[in-house]
């Protein structure tokens, strides 16, 4: 059975924001919605605070931490973890939040009543956005794929794993080309898939496993320094 997941190599991520932009355009996202956020992180406590991001209110991305010249500067992209045991699934009263057979967790905009229960239940803060009013866009023209997710007031939106693209045999927007070669996706149950090969032999971390959600995003850890 296909089980889609992601691997993100924290050593290769340079915080360039290509993946966030690819997602934003391909999905024609409104101004205040980001499915994917690349955080600047100044420690190696991956389960602690995700870090800071301009899109989440920080003044600047990529300020280091520590004391010069002994500093730390890392980048961590966070989007929906498409968990094996999603806490959002249980608490959605309408069944808008669903998990496909291939593992993709998605929200049906027609069924979402905007109660926000999924946001409160999800241990990965910031991956879901509840739209207050009508969506506002940066451009007057529609951009992105013709079957981009629907955007409207009062619903919750999050990463769809670009199922619209996957279902047509194409590549999720954020996965198409990461300049650092940090992002991988595919069938976690297939040992020959790109994502499985990326994970093989690497030390990795899965976020906040104590919450019991069994996330399907593998964060490949930076190698030890000499």
């Amino acid at each position, binding site marked *: 059975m296909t089980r889609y997941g992601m691997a993100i190599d924290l050593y290769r991520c340079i915080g360039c924001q290509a993946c966030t932009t690819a997602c934003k355009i391909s999905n024609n996202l409104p101004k205040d919605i980001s499915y994917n956020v690349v955080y600047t992180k100044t420690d190696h406590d991956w389960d602690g605070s995700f870090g800071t991001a301009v899109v989440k209110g920080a003044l600047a991305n990529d300020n280091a931490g520590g004391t010069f010249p002994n500093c730390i500067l890392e980048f961590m992209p966070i989007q929906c973890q498409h968990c094996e045991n999603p806490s959002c699934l249980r608490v959605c009263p309408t069944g808008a939040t669903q998990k496909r057979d291939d593992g993709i967790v998605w929200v049906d905009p027609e069924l979402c009543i905007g*109660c926000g229960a999924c946001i409160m239940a999800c241990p990965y803060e910031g991956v879901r956005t509840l739209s207050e009013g009508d969506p506002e866009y940066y451009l007057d023209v529609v951009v992105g794929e013709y079957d981009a997710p629907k955007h409207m007031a009062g619903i919750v939106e999050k990463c769809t794993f670009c199922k619209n693209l996957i279902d047509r045999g194409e590549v999720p927007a954020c996965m198409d080309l990461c300049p650092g070669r940090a992002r991988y996706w595919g069938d976690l149950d297939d040992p020959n898939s790109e994502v499985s090969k990326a994970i093989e032999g690497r030390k990795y971390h899965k976020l906040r496993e104590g919450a019991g959600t069994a996330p399907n995003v593998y964060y490949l850890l930076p190698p030890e320094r000499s």
Partner: protein
Amino acid sequence: MISEFPLFIFTTLGGLSAGLVMAMAAFPPAEKPARPWLAPLTALVLLGIGMLGVLFHLKRPALFLLALRNPTAGIAQEAYCGIVLGVLLLVLLIVCWRKGEAPKALVWVTAAVSLVMTFIMGFAYLANVGTAAWANWTTIPLFVVGDIAMGLALWAILSKDVLAKRPFTLANIVVLAVLAVVMLLTGLHFGSVGNDAMLIYAGLVVAGLGGIAVSVAAQKAPASWQAGALIACVLVGVCLSRYGFYAASII
């Protein structure tokens, strides 16, 4: 105004309603009350306003019927229970109005559903693994015991002289003592996950200590001011603690 204000209204008013029914069942009036329909009506109205509160919590309230689709969801369970409770309260109201008194069996069934309701409200928060402050066992008794305490206090207003009865004041003291302990544990848990517990401790003082003081005074020498003082202490105290609870919302 916290983001979860509509939910705060729902659980407080709905909880007050449920607690009132449980108090009615546990401490039936000695003689036939002058207005037997008043308590059921109060409970029904409180529940109704509370459920309206849920509607305001939804960004797309016109679609609220969809909220019944997923039985594992706390909101859906609260909806099912609320509807059943509402129907029972309506029946109770009509029977009280017509017959002049509340039949014991009906009252106990309604009280049982009310108790379930308070558990559901508390239990719903345990699924919120994203909000460490809420996903803790202390949340359940915070709601259940708080609702019972509020119900007892309201019953003291609506049921003549119940506060003069020792069993009632004793029960009050015990419930408020348990509530105080639960609030303390909740506050400590909040602190341990980095959330502000100030309002919860404030609630502990007002509802727990204040309420117990009034109940002890009532035991010693019943007076007419005590019912009003009790409901004020308990309601304000529980509201403070709930407000503090909801303020931990990550939304």
